[in-house]
């Protein structure tokens, strides 16, 4: 099952500030609810986990992340992640994200294009919900990202480009240890009803 998502989220911080987060794979991963980088293998290869809980079922995807491109000049990140869960699901994600100036001064936009390929149980049971769930997951990610970028802005001297290395741990932004699928479900159900009554979300 393949899901393609093309999304733009507003970020309340400047491109340079936001890049301090996006340019750092650990910081970016920390914005993804339930995600964690567990090990760095070399400059571009990492190991990580994504944990999600739906009722009593906990799924832990463990896998590899490869940064394919990191272009500070274009504020662009391209990465591919691939993981499997012990109970028989596997997922891969190809993500390209970049930053653009926002509508107002000191703001920016996070533009992401992601392709998820899911196999196994998740694709069998969840096929109908996969698009809205991915959507909702990314929305949570964007919210955390926005907060992380704002934290960078607070920690940095105004006007100076945020040094990516120093901003390596904008930690307070993403405390979620696992993807809270119940909260997520609510978002999904709201979205589904909205869609049912023709409301464009």
């Amino acid at each position, binding site marked *: *099952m*393949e899901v393609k998502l093309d999304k733009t989220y507003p970020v309340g911080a400047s491109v340079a500030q936001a890049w301090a987060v996006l340019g750092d794979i650990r910081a970016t991963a920390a914005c993804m609810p339930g995600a964690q980088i567990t090990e760095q293998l070399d400059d571009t290869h990492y190991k990580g986990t994504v944990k999600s809980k739906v009722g009593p079922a906990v799924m832990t995807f463990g896998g590899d992340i490869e940064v394919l491109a990191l272009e500070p000049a274009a504020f662009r990140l391209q990465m591919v992640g691939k993981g499997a869960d*012990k109970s028989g*699901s596997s997922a891969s994600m190809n993500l390209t994200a970049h930053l653009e100036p926002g509508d107002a001064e000191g703001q920016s936009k996070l533009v992401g294009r992601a392709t998820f390929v899911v*196999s*196994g149980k998740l*694709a*069998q049971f969840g096929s109908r919900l996969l698009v809205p769930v991915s959507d909702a997951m990314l929305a949570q990610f964007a919210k955390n990202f926005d907060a992380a970028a704002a934290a960078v802005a607070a920690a940095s001297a105004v006007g100076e480009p945020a040094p990516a290395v120093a901003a390596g741990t904008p930690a307070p932004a993403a405390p979620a240890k696992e993807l809270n699928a119940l909260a997520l479900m609510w978002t999904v159900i709201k979205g589904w009803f909205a869609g049912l009554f023709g409301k464009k979300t």
Partner: protein
Amino acid sequence: MNAPETKERLAALQGMGDSRLRKEDARFIQGKGNYVDDIKMPEMLHMDIVRSPFAHARIKGIDKTEALKVPGVLAVLTADDLKPFKLHWMPTLAGDVAAVLADEKVHFQMQEVAVVIATDRYAAADGVEAVQVDYEELPVVIDPFEALKPDAPVLREDLAGKTEGAHGKRDHHNHIFTWDAGDKAAADAAFDNAAVTVQQHLYYPRVHPCPLETCGCVASFDPVRGELTTYLTSQAPHVVRTVVSLLSGIPESKIRIVSPDIGGGFGNKVGVYPGYVCAIAATIVLGKPVKWIEDRVENISSTAFARDYHMDGEIAATADGRITGLRVNVVADHGAFDACADPTKFPAGLFHICSGSYDIPAAYAQVKGVYTNKAPGGVAYRCSFRVTEAVYLIERLVDVLAQKMNMDKAEIRAKNFIKKEQFPYTSAFGFEYDSGDYQTALDKVLEAVDYKALRAEQAAKRADPSCPTLMGIGLVSFTEVVGAGPSKMCDILGVGMFDSCEIRVHPTGSAIARMGTISTGQAHATTYAQIIATEIGLPSEVIQVEEGDTSTAPYGLGTYGSRSTPVAGAAIAMASRKIHAKARKIAAHLLEVSENDLDWEIDRFNVKGDPSKHKTMKDICWAAYNNVPPGMEMGLEAVHYYDPPNFTYPFGIYLCVVDIDRGTGETQVRRFYALDDCGTRINPMVIEGQIHGGLTEGYAVAMGQQMPFDAQGNLQGNTLMDYFLPTSVETPHWETDHTVTPSPHHPIGAKGVAESPHVGSIPTFTSAVVDAFAHLGVTDMTMPHTSYRVWQQLVKSGVAL
């Protein structure tokens, strides 16, 4: 003779024609059935299966370490562990091999990769999650047409270099066989000279039989005696015993396969599945009983599917609608291993019954089997081998012809029927139809539903642009071929497709009968006893019927393809007649007259002209154990192995009226009228129940069941949340009717019935739904006809509200 008294005696027998209640139901409705999962043995272990999340992948490694640390887990078996016993691959019924546990590669999603054996079911499941399998994904092929492209990925590396399969030449690495029937030159000539031709592409989607009870077994090996007992969900326990013996090397005499109560089969329980083999291997290795019961998701995903036929059909006809030729080309998606359950010589089953109820002088059919990354199977889901596909094809094609010629569906059928006086009739494909009277049946149905009035109503609705519904009328006149079959044509793994019956009559006038078949819900214990009751004159109430235990039942080929009544039913009648013949000799001896001086009457032999001098069967039973004619063996028992001289050909006329909501696409079945002719009727109540069941399963297939795959080979629809099983809420009201045209070659004239309603109803639903759009030029709609799909057609045809 006293007529009311005779009537009473006849009624007391509850023989053929009596709607006696099902003997099985008393235990089923009290929850006291004995299914495989009810069987518990001391020290019994539990098995669970590690399955592949991928449809096509190379296995780079399997790490059992963590699994073996799980408390309660005793063993983890992989293909490498089965290799020394040569059990990692097994032969299929279709002459191919199938992996028991994936050997280096997985070929479909949910394929068995490893098994975990533990002290309880929970530990086994935990163990399964802890087994680490390292996969390298490979390109997935889901579409059989893609599979046949020259550069398609090689699915079966184990068959590299094999240009010859079990059914002839393989011309591509994903090609299994090409099989044909009929006379191509004659069919081509009919098309060259035809005034009218029509063609239609039809897809019969992949579906799953989905019995209420999933598959499973309890295998128990006694290492001291060297005996293996296995309780198993099988529609063919003797065949399983033979296969297990061939695989394991254990003599058949030391293997006991028991099919206890079976909760529905519908073809799903014909095959031998990896779970059975692994449980048997595990009990031999561990010396303790091992239970394996699959869950619903495993059942739908990995045990035998049905159909998946891509069919192109063409009909040639004269200018006035007389069919002169039929050509059919099928691409059959068999999945990863060719595990179709067909008689060995017929890789496409009896698909060549596709000339149907019609007198078609020239016909040709070709079926090409193809490998894809889907689960293997290809079983006869409540039908004789591929007969559902065949009936769907011809009935849809005849509709398309009627549409093109602007003729009525009933009229074109009547015009092309094989006439009553043409039986026995040999079809262009070589089948010898035993008996039939299609016109009488058709007339009966058309009159019962007032067909003319229905057509008038439909015309009025079509003329009214503001009518909120589209009305469709489906009509099907099907002929099945069941009761496989004559051993000169039909065998399974070399064993002829006879069936058997052994009857033992006890001194006090009761009896036990054992057969090689096994009821999966057909009420054999009820109906078989009725045949014996009528044949030998003992009440069916005191005749016990036992099936399914290979240590007690005579060898038989099992229950599928509506073969129980045509084959085993005949064996029962013949065995009964042997007993009857011996009883006559004993009666003559007791009455001191010649055998020729005796008349048989219901339950006794009367001396001709003096019925006051008689011996009842009960008297004879007693005498058989103490006073037999000089030179005669004592006892009263008989065995018969029946090799049918021909198939039987049940038929029926089905009519369906649907109303389609132009706003939502929701299809209401307003009326469904099913007339069946199964020859002699043994128990009308059981027949009606079987017809209701078959119609409901037909409704499920036509209106909702599907197994959709995505590009990665994920099966999206393997839970009952997605896979449609109709309940009383969705199921339409059924009206049933019958005619009786006995089979001339069957000892009691019975033809078999349980599958006709499935085979016949599916094209009837499609015929009705398409008919609703016929005036808009639509000739085909692919099943299932869900509201969404029908709504899409409404939009496409410009009639959606």
